[in-house]
């Protein structure tokens, strides 16, 4: 307890930024375990960090005009490189960059990071899938819960997830209706549907994208339909329902726990 009192805000920043050594990190972690408000604050900061890094990562790149920047900077007004880059200069620049370091070349052709685009697509498609399928009375899913093992193997194979387990949400009062294959951002994805005793439905969508990078959990809402979504490695997840945000968040957390990481 005495050590907990000696944690300063600067320690929390340093923790969030990964600047602490093992001993201090452990000390802060003990403090956070006992102070949920501080833990939430730090988690927010870390989520900001992840998103900011992801947002600007794609801008770390060379341009064909870089050579002109260095060599022609003294007559700038005339020589400000035309933004429609000269191809000859590009060829020369690539040659020069190659001479400087082999690691440089690939950067030139790096595709822009599309992770944020995916995080935009994911909640939208999750919401659409929910609106389309959750209102289906007779055919809400392709494979019903009575074939759960088959459902898991089938969708696991399409998504290349070894040992895919269909999340069990019984503790939350939701039982599995079944699942289906559906496109998520243009690739095979899975949707699982659950239902509580009152017939309220919740869907869990999973999609894969090679360019994905892990994010924190996010929340999106549009006309009473709420979606929690997150990306874990290459897999994107979205939990959607017309239920309270609190309950949906609990379901999302439960899914996160149960899905393989």
């Amino acid at each position: 307890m005495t050590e907990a009192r000696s944690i300063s805000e600067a320690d929390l920043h340093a923790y969030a930024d990964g600047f602490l050594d093992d001993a201090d990190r452990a000390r802060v972690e003990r403090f956070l375990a006992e102070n949920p408000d501080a833990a939430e604050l730090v988690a927010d900061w870390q989520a900001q960090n992840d998103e900011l890094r992801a947002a600007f990562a794609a801008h770390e790149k060379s341009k064909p005009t870089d050579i002109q920047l260095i060599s022609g900077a003294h007559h700038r007004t005339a020589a400000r490189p035309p933004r429609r880059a000269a191809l000859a200069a590009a060829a020369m620049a690539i040659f020069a960059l190659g001479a400087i370091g082999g690691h440089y070349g690939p950067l030139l052709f790096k595709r822009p990071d599309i992770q944020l685009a995916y995080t935009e697509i994911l909640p939208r498609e999750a919401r659409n899938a929910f609106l389309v399928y959750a209102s289906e009375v007779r055919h809400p899913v392709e494979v019903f819960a009575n074939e759960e093992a088959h459902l898991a193997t089938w969708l696991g194979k399409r998504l290349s997830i070894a040992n895919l387990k269909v999340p069990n949400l019984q503790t939350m009062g939701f039982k599995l209706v079944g699942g289906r294959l559906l496109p998520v951002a243009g690739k095979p994805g899975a949707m699982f549907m659950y239902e509580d005793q009152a017939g309220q439905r919740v869907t869990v969508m999973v999609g894969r994208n090679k360019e994905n990078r892990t994010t924190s959990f996010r929340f999106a809402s549009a006309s009473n339909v709420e979606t929690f979504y997150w990306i874990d490695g290459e897999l994107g997840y979205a939990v959607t329902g017309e239920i309270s945000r609190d309950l949906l968040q609990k379901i999302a957390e439960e899914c996160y726990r149960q899905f393989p990481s």
Partner: protein
Amino acid sequence: MKARETQAPAPLSFEAQILALLPQLRRYSRSLTRSDVEGEDLLQDCVEKALVSRSQWRGANFKSWAYRIMTNLHLNARRSVARRPSVGIEEAENVAMSAVSDDPLEKSRLVKALETLPKEARAVLMLVVVEGHSYQEVADMLDVPIGTVMSRLSRARQALREKMREENVIPMRRPR
């Protein structure tokens, strides 16, 4: 050892150091500004300034030196007003060459929220988070006490957090 001063497409030493650092400087300049165009402007100014002041470089940490130049240029300048009409992230699409519709920055509400931060606080946040400098390095770079770095960092994070809450983005605590 001097760089060959012919047409030299393969600059060495000082120029080579700048060239090697350009991708990171480009990321930093973009993270301080509102659009690709403004980012490139700041980058060009920084390179120009570095070349002109090359005699002031004491051979110590080149990277810190270049970052310091860019930060100072940005904090001291009223560039966009003076030099060209400022262009927000949305309109940036209509500007020559930045018509990249899948620019992830346009999609991020957090990045938009950066516009509400004071320049100094934003610079500290970017130097620490995106560029990976330690608090002490940032303090040296900006010539301010480390306590000032911490308070700017704190202010930036707090402001972003409030802004995002207004915008319905709740980063949930991951069960670790």
